[in-house]
Structures are given as structure tokens and as C-alpha cells.
């Protein structure tokens, strides 16, 4: 009787509505949210391994994979390329990104190829390693690892958040409710990111991840990122070698505009790293080398680091050329370069 006075029908109804919504969310979005609070450090988030052997990639746990599916066991005779990296290889869209275009190019060369895009926006070396470990379970013929050094801050922040989230801290309590986190994610990713221009978001959204990254142009921070990328990439190469899976390292470059007609490329030392790791099943392709020989490389970049579809096509073709150089090691006789005409 006393409790009845404390709780109004409106309050009880609100609790009931939220309760029903929570149960609904748990039923309908459980898979979608799995690994959400590992912030990219969950090994399995985004991989749905079904009983029939099909693996489906879906958006979950902070991993915004392009939806794709493949068999857990590589089909006989299929050359499976898995591309791991950040927003650059993820591309402007699935079909415009170089992993997809690489598959198409290989098919043009009569290779029965299967290209899987495992790139995720904002993923730095540490989280890419988690994806790499998972990818190695799916019998890849080649792993393409796009090495960038700009997401180290996010990697660290997300790691701390994942650790923090495991604590009892009260600030995490509301977000442990499924409907709250679902609505929060929908708002941030579907409403906020689409309606508010990047320029506003990056500058004024105090807690926006991109804004935090953009606010850290400190040279020491950049050096620390390079160091971390270097160490983790070495580990990644060792990991692939240990499993006997060929690894192609693509080192990122940045296009820096020096004026209306002038520009230069910066690689933050990643090219030297790639070169130093090449050999024994590890290959290296420099983005800087791919684009610096062009007349107007700026037309291939959408900003200093991301590529337009034409740039992705160029990257896919460059990867194929690189694979042609190592066709024997990769077991791809179809890629054997045609003997050059002597010109006689």
C-alpha cells in the first residue's frame, strides 16, 4: 500500500515500456551488439560463423564491416585475399574500394579469386592485429595489411575504454542497458554523422572520436604512433610467417599540398619499415611509389590520405603487378607476366 503511493501509474508504465523495449532489443539486436564494449578488441565481434560453415561479416561491436560472406574453409582452387586496415582500404563504398577491385582484377587475369574486405575505419595497428589473428583462421591465400600510423590514438583510447568498461564505474551503467546503447549508436552513427557536416563535428563535438584524433597533431604523438605501428607491424609479419601465410604490406602515404601547383608525399617512415620487413613471404608495396610517378596524383585523393574510386582502382592494379612479381611464391601461375617482346 505504501509502495503504491510512491509509484505512480505513469512511472510504472514508463518502466514497463522501457522493459518491453529492452527485452525486444535483447531479442532482435543481441548479435548486432555483441562485443560492443570490447571497443574493437573482441576477437570475434562482427564475425558470424554459422554451423553450415558460412562466415558472415556484419556490423557489430564497434566493427563496421562491409556486409560480406565466405566459407570458413577456403574452397579448393580459390585464391583468398583478405585485406586488413583502416578507412583507406575500406573505401568510399564496398565496390569502389581496392579490395573488391583487386578481386575483379585478379578474375580478369583468370584467377579464381575471393577478396574479403576486413578493413575498419579508425583501426590502428593494435586493433588490426586482433582482426589479423581472426583472419588467419580462415585459410587466406594472401593477407594484405594496410599499414597506417594515424589511428594509434584511437587504438589506445578504445583499449582504455574497453578496460574501463569492465569496471563497476557508475558512468557506464546506463550504457549497459541494450536499448540505451542501441539508440545511442543509432543516433551517433546514423543521425549525427549524416546530418552534421564533418567540419562542425570535428571542431565542436568535444567527445567525437574523430575530433579527438584531429586535435592531436603533436609531433611527439606522431612519432609515438610511428613507433607503435612499427613494433606491431613487425609482430604482424612474424605472425603471418609463423602461419605460413603470405603477407603484403601496403604502407600509407599522405599527400601534402604546398600550394596550388605544388605538393609532396609523406610516409612518416612507414616505407622504410615496409622495406625492412620484406622477404620470406612478406612483400611490400609503397603507396607513395604508386602515386608519385603520376602526372596529377591529387586527382586520385579525396583528402590527404583517402582515395577516390580512381585511386582505389590504381591501387588494385598496383597490387596485381606486385603479385605478378611473386606469382611463383603465391602459386598463381595465371599471373605469370608475359615475356616481353624483344622489340626486334
Amino acid at each position, binding site marked *: 500500500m505504501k509502495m503504491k503511493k510512491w509509484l*505512480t501509474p*505513469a512511472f510504472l508504465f514508463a518502466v514497463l515500456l522501457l522493459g518491453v*523495449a529492452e527485452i525486444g532489443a535483447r531479442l532482435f539486436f543481441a548479435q548486432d551488439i555483441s562485443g560492443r564494449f570490447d571497443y574493437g578488441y573482441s576477437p570475434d565481434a562482427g564475425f558470424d560463423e554459422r554451423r553450415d560453415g558460412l562466415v558472415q561479416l556484419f556490423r557489430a561491436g564497434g566493427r563496421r564491416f562491409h556486409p560480406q560472406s565466405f566459407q570458413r574453409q577456403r574452397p579448393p582452387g580459390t585464391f583468398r585475399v583478405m585485406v586488413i586496415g583502416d578507412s583507406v582500404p575500406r573505401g568510399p563504398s564496398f565496390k569502389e574500394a581496392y579490395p573488391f577491385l583487386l578481386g575483379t582484377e585478379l578474375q580478369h587475369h583468370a584467377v579464381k579469386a575471393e577478396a574479403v574486405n576486413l578493413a575498419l575505419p579508425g583501426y590502428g595497428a593494435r586493433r588490426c592485429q586482433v582482426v589479423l589473428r581472426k583472419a588467419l583462421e580462415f585459410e587466406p591465400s594472401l593477407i594484405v595489411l594496410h599499414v597506417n600510423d594515424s589511428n594509434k590514438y584511437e587504438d589506445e583510447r578504445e583499449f582504455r575504454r574497453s578496460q574501463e568498461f569492465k569496471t563497476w564505474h557508475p558512468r557506464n551503467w546506463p550504457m549497459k*542497458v541494450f536499448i*540505451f546503447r542501441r539508440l545511442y549508436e*543509432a543516433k551517433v552513427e546514423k543521425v549525427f554523422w549524416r546530418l*552534421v557536416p564533418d*567540419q562542425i563535428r570535428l571542431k565542436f563535438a*568535444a567527445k567525437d572520436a574523430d575530433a579527438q584524433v584531429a586535435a592531436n597533431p603533436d609531433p611527439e604523438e606522431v612519432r609515438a604512433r610511428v613507433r607503435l605501428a612499427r613494433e606491431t607491424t613487425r609482430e604482424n609479419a612474424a605472425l603471418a610467417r609463423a602461419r605460413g601465410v603470405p603477407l603484403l604490406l601496403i604502407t600509407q602515404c599522405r599527400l601534402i599540398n604546398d600550394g596550388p601547383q605544388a605538393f609532396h608525399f609523406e610516409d612518416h617512415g612507414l616505407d622504410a619499415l615496409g622495406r625492412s620487413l620484406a622477404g620470406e613471404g612478406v612483400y611490400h608495396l609503397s603507396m607513395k611509389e604508386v602515386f608519385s610517378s603520376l602526372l596529377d596524383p591529387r586527382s586520385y585523393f579525396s583528402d590527404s590520405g583517402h582515395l577516390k574510386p580512381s585511386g582505389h582502382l590504381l591501387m588494385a592494379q598496383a597490387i596485381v603487378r606486385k603479385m605478378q612479381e611473386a606469382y611463383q611464391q603465391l602459386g598463381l601461375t595465371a599471373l605469370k607476366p608475359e615475356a616481353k617482346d624483344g622489340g626486334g
Partner: protein
Amino acid sequence: MSFITWQYLLFLPLVLLLYWRLPGRGRLLLLLAASYVFYACWDVRFLALVMATTAIDFLCALSIEGKRPGAARVLLLALLPALWLLSCSFFLPAAGINLLIVAVAAALGLAFFAGHELIWLLAREKRSRAFLILSIGFCLGILGFFKYCGFFLDSARTMLEFLGMQPNKVLLNIILPVGISFYTFQSLGYVIDVYRGQSPACPSLLTFATFDAFFPQMVAGPIERGRHLIPQLQQTAAFRPDYLHDGLRLIIVGFFKKVFVADNCALLANYVFDPQTPLNGYWACLGVVAFAFQIYGDFSGYTDIARGSAKLFGIDLVQNFRFPYFAKNPSDFWGRWHISLSTWFRDYLYIPLGGNRGANWETIRNLAVTMLLAGLWHGANWIFVLWGAYHGLLLILYRVVPGLRSLGDETSASSYRGALAMALMWVFILVGWAIFRSPNLHQLGIWLAALGHWHTGLSLPWASSSLWLLLHAAPLILLQLLTWKYRDETSLRHLSWPARGLVYALMLLLIVSSTEHDTEFIYFQF
């Protein structure tokens, strides 16, 4: 400690549970301790200012009533801020209090003590006025030093430089204590009321200190009157369930206004009033409308949380907002916006200046002085003075221009004319917000110039951002329409309980969906 923190969401229930389990005096002690902890979470040093204001106004009010406190008591209270700073310097070395600051506080305490004792030597008929002046002098002195000293020194230096002189550079890096304008005005209002005989002097230091520092409304209002709040603090009533219902309803509405409406609208307003933003007419309008919703959601949201928190203790705080954007004229607007401040200025400045009792020019002068000072109250910046002047001008124009006067007349029977009056006033309010939000006159000039060109130029596309604004303003407008019937922004009484439950659930979802963008309340800086 801000309301929009998890700390507050734990702090409030804890204090509440203890409060209703304690007897009368224990409750006051708890509220005072909780209020000081609440304030010390910002800056432990500035509690000394709260204590100083409390001591000065408590003693002066008693003396105005002719009740002489013992000299030892006066001395102890006058030195209380210095003692607090001294203990902080020993026990909290990280607070950075050195002995010079303690010495200054002690010297000021002794000066007050000397002044207080000297006034008692005056003839009886002169004492009350002298104690009032002592209280006003010390309180406004503290406020003036911490809030306006740097501003006036800076302005004087700029003026001397403009006149071709090379003044010595005086550098003062004074931190503005949070909420100083609010608790100073609340405390001063009490002393003036006692002087006028409108309120009895509070005999209990504990009660008065709690009144001065009551944590729900201490840092951003509403500015309470002693005769309204002190009797409620003295009550020893038992808990009633409607305290919980009303309090939680107000808190939810407040969080919704602040977290969902204000913080999301702030993104666009901050962009538009940033010096590096290339503006055109669309963005200038979008930005100022966004700011109108931001400041309203922010400040009225704060007030609702404050009122809700107080209600949980069985205490009613005054209503500070009543659909301000539905005002039909400037006077109507100030009767709806920050009501506790506008009535403070009306009662303690405008009416003592003569109000509208004298000739027309005297009324105009009184309006101008009041609004200039109201502008300055908001911040030590010429932009706030300009904002006050602008609103003063609006009040004067609506008084002297017959067409405007009749249009803004609230008793206008024609709904068409009423809507027109509301729309015109909304435009005037928006221009006022553009002044208020501009960081300086140069930026205001840029905003005004942008209204003259509507080509896209370097500006970002504005349509999607308009949709963002609409998504966040529309629920607030809807809520206002739902509550319009009862003339109370937070009343949902006329809705059926299922509708109320639905509204609560939706508001809770919208609040949580925006929790990442936590920002401080705008009015904390005042």
C-alpha cells in the same frame, strides 16, 4: 559538481535518504554540509567567499533589526573565511593557497569586524542604513573584484592606449568563482528585505548559511528570496510521495532540455559563432535559432533540475521560466525569462530608482540603467552591456512607439495580432541572442554582415544541419505545447497516465542517446 554528472546522480539520492531520516536540525546540518561539498567540488578555495557572504549578511541583517551579536561571535564569523583558507593551506596543499591570501582574508575580516563594531557606536536611526551599506559594500566589493576587476582594468588600459598614452600593464589573472553572481544577489536581496521590514532577520546561522548555499540553486539560481526559502528550510514536515513524483518529473524534464536539446543545438551555434566560420545568411539564421534553443534548454533545464532536486527535500523553488518565446513584448519576455533575476532587478533597482512613477524620461532612464546593469550582471564583457542596452532599447521602444505598444499589448483580442506580436518579438529576441552569443563586437559585425548575403560561397550546406536542429528542437516545442494549458513548462498533469508514462520513457531514451556530449551549463559562468 555539475548536475550532469554521475557523481550528482549518486550524491543526490544519498543526501536525500539521509535527509528524511534525520530530525529538524540534523536536516539543516546535512543540507549545509552537502551544499559545501557540492560547491567545493568545483573549487575548495572559493567556499571562503560563500562563507564570507554568509557571515556578512547574517550579521548585518541581525544588526539592522537591532539585535546586536556578541563581539566574539562577530570576530569569529568575520575570520571564518580566513580560517577556512588556513586549514585548506595545511590540509589541502594542492589547492595552492599561500599565507598571503590567508592574510588578505584575515585583514578583510578584521576590517568588517571593525566596521561592524563602529556602526554600533552610531546613533540608532543611522545604524540600519549603515549596516545595509556595509553589507552591500562588502558583498558587491567581493563580486566586483572577482568578476569585474580584470574587465575594468583592461577597458581602462584600452581607453588610455586609444588616447595615445602608454599605461603600465597591470596583469590580474582572477578566476571567476562559479555562481558568485547568484548567491551574492540572493544574499543581498535578503539583507535589503530585512532593511525594508519585508522579511525578518534569520536568527539561526545554520538556517541562513543553508539558505545562502542551498546546493540545488546555489550556482545558477533561481535567485530566491529569504521570505520564501528560509521558512521552508525551517519546516520539519514528514516526507510525502508527491515530493518524489514532482521532483523526479522536474529532473527528467530538466535533463531532457539540457542534454538532448541544448547540447545538441550547441554544435551548430558554436560553429556559427566561431571566428573562423565562413557565414552566409542561412547559417547566420540557423546559428542564432540554434543558440536560442540551446540557451533556453540549458538554463531552463538547469532550473528544472534545481527545482526538482529541491522538491525532493520538500522545498519549492520559484519558477524561473514561463514559455519565454511566446512573449508578445519585451516586458512580457522579462516576465517569462529568468524571472527570479528580472524581478530582483525590478524590486531592488528599478523601483527604488523610481520605476515608472515619474515623468516619461525618468522611466526611460530607469529602464536604461536597470537593463545596462542587468546586462553587466551576466558577465564582465562589453558584449553583455550591449545586450542589456539592446533590451533596454526594446523596452523603451515598446513604451514610446504607439504602434509597437498596441501590438505588444497582451490584452489584444485579435489572435492574428497576437501571433504577429509574438513573431516580431521572437525576431527581436533572436537579434538579442546574436549579441549575447558573439564573443566580441567584431564577430557580431560578421554575423550581421552575413545577413546581407545569401549566396553559398565557402559556407557548408545548411539543409541537413537544419534538419538536425529541427530534430532536437521539435520535441521541446511539442513538450511546451503539451504543457501550455497549465502555464507551467514542466506540468504534465493534464495528460493521462499512459501518455505521461510514454513521455517519460521517450525523454529518458532521448537523454541517454545524447549523453556523450556533456558540456557545462552556460549560466555557470555568470
